[in-house]
Structure formats: structure tokens, C-alpha cells
């Protein structure tokens, strides 16, 4: 029995046709690179997604402007969120728990892009890193 999948590894979006050959073995066609085969295997047996989100920026009070009362509309100026991502695709069923952990973070500024904010998240061996330097 064959199954149609769309590879989401990169923006190419190859249309894959996956057939189960023998026990656990897959035959994949329609992929333009070897990553399509890896994607098909993972998507069928253990789906994963890269998680991108933002964490709260804990700004140290160094002047009046930086100390605007919380809740006050403060569009523009220093960003209030630090963008983050998982360093690898994360098990799909654990994504909600990962998001909860990211939203509980408070990132001290300044921060450099690439800084590990959550090491070995939920015991997966995957880290969560900052993806923007805010100085």
C-alpha cells in the first residue's frame, strides 16, 4: 500500500510516494534529495518538528526608558521577546510541553544568538537556543 507525503524538510516540498516493502522497510520515490527518505521514515514512525517560538526578555533596568511600567503599550524600541528555536526537529508529541518550558523562560539581556537557553530540553538531547543577538 502506498502513501502520499509532502516532504517538509526544506521549502522545495517534494511530493513523496512511500511504499512499505518488507517489515519496517520503506521504498520512497519523488524525493529530490536523500533527506526525503529520512523524512518519510520519521514521519511514519516518529514524527518530529522544529520548534520556533519566543521567550520573554528580562530587561535589566538601566534607565527611565527601559523601566516603562509593565502593561504599557511600548511599540518600537528594544524588542520584548527573544526569538528561540530547537537545535533539531523535536518529537511532535512533546512540542506542547516544550513550548510551556520556553514560555516559562526569562532571558537576561544582553543575549547572543546561539546561546543555549534550555539544555537537553525534556531529556531529548535537543537544546533550545536564542536566534537573535540583543545587545
Amino acid at each position, binding site marked *: 500500500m502506498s502513501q502520499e507525503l509532502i516532504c517538509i524538510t526544506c521549502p522545495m516540498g517534494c511530493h513523496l510516494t512511500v511504499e512499505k516493502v518488507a517489515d519496517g522497510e520503506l521504498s520512497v520515490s519523488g524525493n529530490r534529495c536523500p533527506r526525503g527518505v529520512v523524512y518519510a521514515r520519521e514521519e511514519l514512525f516518529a514524527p518530529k518538528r522544529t520548534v520556533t517560538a519566543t521567550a520573554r526578555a528580562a530587561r535589566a533596568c538601566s534607565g527611565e526608558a527601559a523601566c516603562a511600567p509593565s502593561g504599557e503599550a511600548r511599540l518600537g524600541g528594544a524588542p520584548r521577546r527573544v*526569538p528561540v528555536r530547537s537545535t533539531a526537529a523535536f518529537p511532535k508529541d512533546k512540542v506542547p510541553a516544550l513550548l510551556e518550558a520556553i514560555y516559562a523562560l526569562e532571558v537576561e539581556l544582553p543575549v547572543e544568538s546561539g546561546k543555549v537557553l534550555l539544555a537537553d530540553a525534556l531529556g531529548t538531547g535537543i537544546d533550545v537556543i536564542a536566534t*537573535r543577538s540583543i545587545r
Partner: protein
Amino acid sequence: MKEMRFDAAVVGGGAAGMAAALEFAARGLTCAVIEREEQLGGILMQCIHNGFGLIEFNEELSGPEFAERFEEKVRKTAITPLCSTTVIEMEVEGEEKVLSCVSSGLGVIRLRAKAVVLAMGCRERNRGNIRIPGSRPAGVYTAGLAQRLVNIEGYVPGKDVVIIGSGDIGLIMARRMSWVGCKVHAVVEILPYPSGLTRNIVQCLNDFGIPLYLSHLTTNIYGKDRVEGVEITPIENGALMLEKSFKIPCDTVLLSVGLVPENELSKNMGIEINPMTNGPYVDACLMTNIPGVFACGNVLHVHDLVDFVVEEARRAGAFAAEWLAGKRGGKEVRVKAGPNVRYVSPSKVAPARDNKLYLRTLVVKNDAVLEVKLNNKIVRQVKKSHVQPSEMITLTLGQAELEAAASAPDSVLEISIQ
């Protein structure tokens, strides 16, 4: 008023602007990048999702990471970044272009340059552009504005969301809003196929069970002070099925209904705009009708990938540097969008060298053939397993295909999809 003078000025400090500027710096030319935001990076700074840089860096980065890599390169050169600075007018004065700018730090600047690269990017179409009937409550945002609010400013603009249009920003925002705890009730698309990348349908809608209504029009927005819901009407055989209309309650509407190159400055300067792309007409060197003014990135035509943007911007920068060195283009052949092709950019090719072309199809088709004809004679055929309007097609044509044009006057290159 501050006077400044450079060999080249780049308008816009996003991916295109930085990539073009680096070409000037690499050739020892002086260059300013004028950016209205407080930092370089442009729209990439709010695109916190991954998928950037696969071609450029051979890895998958988020938007800010991609921008930072270019920013670091810019900082290592003699390029002058002018941030928090807006160009309000561009004029040609003899051999020079004069850019009137307003800067929060430097006040009013008159910046003179011999060459200008336009890299202003694009703007979102909004409710007025697509004329959705209904009242005018709060809670209607363009998807990119919502993206900025959520990802940079830290505000979530609502709880129950309907997204109109299936462009990539809308799809990405469907996932983003779901991940910040909102309920996305539907994505409504007027066309029979989605306008975003296929992978985004899979990972941003299917993963969250968000219904995608294809061939559906939003026929009303309800609500007095705040959005209370939208009315959706199916389209069958080109006709609105009003008796099949239904209502979706929501407090927020996001619009992802296309992007328009931001060319107000260009038009005021007298640059001719191609109505098919809403970007300037450019020759094989990416030069507009005003000598010394070049265009690249989303201000020229809307790209799907930043990797394509920087590739094009590099060529624009390199061509502009050659132009500054006194090199003038040779013979050029007009490029025509043939059957099933929406547009081809640039609109001219040079038969003496390799030319990189970008095009968009008008149709969704499997096993399509891209056909290139020079003076009605087929010079190239490329098999495409799948084409759709949201996925840009790239093509390189060189001397091998264009040789015949060197001798024939008024040659025309036509690209079609069969």
C-alpha cells in the same frame, strides 16, 4: 542639513540591501545602506520560524539568524549603515542621484551617489486592497503586522482567529497563533489551490487540524467595536453560492492576501513599473529605465525564498559596480511571458553571457514542460514534475541557447509552460 557622498547608495537594509552593498564593498567602492528600522535585517527580524538559508548557508536558520550573518559581514566592511533613516525623495541631478533622507540621529540628510540599488522590499495588501464588505471593527490585522506584534513586541492580538488568504505569512501565523494559545478556526482562500508553499500547509495547518477552505470568499466581517465573526461563501464554477454562506465566530481576522513591491519612491523618481510584477522594468543587468538605478529583491518582484533574494541582490550589486566602472550593457534580447507564464524577471537577457531568470506559472500542473523559444524556435525544454503559482521557477540561459540572437535583429525570447 547634512551632506553625504558615496559611490553607491542602497535603499533598504534587509537581505537584498545587505547582499547588494557587500558587492560594492568587495570592489573597494564606498556605499551607504539606508534603513528605516533601528537595525539592519528588514522583515527577516520578525520571521522567527526556520527555513531560511538552505541554499545560501546549506543549513536551516531562522530569519534573525540569517540576517545576523549578513549584518556581521556588513560590519566588517567599510559600508556605512544609516539606520532609523527614511528616504523621502530620490532625484536625478546630472550624473548623480540625490536622496533626501530623514534620520532620527542625523536629521535631514542629502545623500549623493552615482549608483543606487533599490532594495525596499514589499508591503502587505490590506483589507482596502481586497474590499471585504462589512463593518470596521478592531481586530483586523495583516498577517505580517500580527507577526511583528507577537514575535517582537510581545503582544498577542486576539484569541479566536480566522485567516483570510493562504499566503505563506498567513500559514506561518496560523501555527504561531496556535503555539501561543490561540484557536485558529479557519484559513479561507478564494482560489482553488493554496497560495503558500506546500510544506507550510502540512506543518502549519494539517498539524493543528486547521480547516482550509479553498474556493471560498469572505463576504462579510461582523462586529461593532471588535470583530465578532466573518461570513464565508463558497464559489462554484465562478459563481458565489450565497445560499451556502456560513458564519465563523472569531475576535481576530488576519489577512494574508499577497504582497506588493513598495515602489512609491521609485515611481516619484520616474521609474517605469511592470504591471505584472508591480516592480520596475529591468534590463539584463537589473538596471531600471534610469541609468545607474538598479533593483533587486522583493521590490523588483516578490520572491518565495530569501536565498533567491540574496542571489539576485548580489548580481544587482555586481552589475551596478561594473556600471560604475564604466561598463555598459551590450546587445539585449526582450523576454516575453508566453502561455501559462505570469511573468519573467528580468525582462531582458544578454546573449553574450549566462542569464538567471525567475518566473511564475499561472497554472497548477504535474509533469509540465518549460519551453524556451527564441524567435519562435525552441532552444530549450525543461521537464518539471510539479509547478504551481506559489513556487517560483528559476532558469539559467546562456550563449548555447541565445547564440542565434547575436546576429538577428529584434529577437524575442518567449518562455511558456506546456
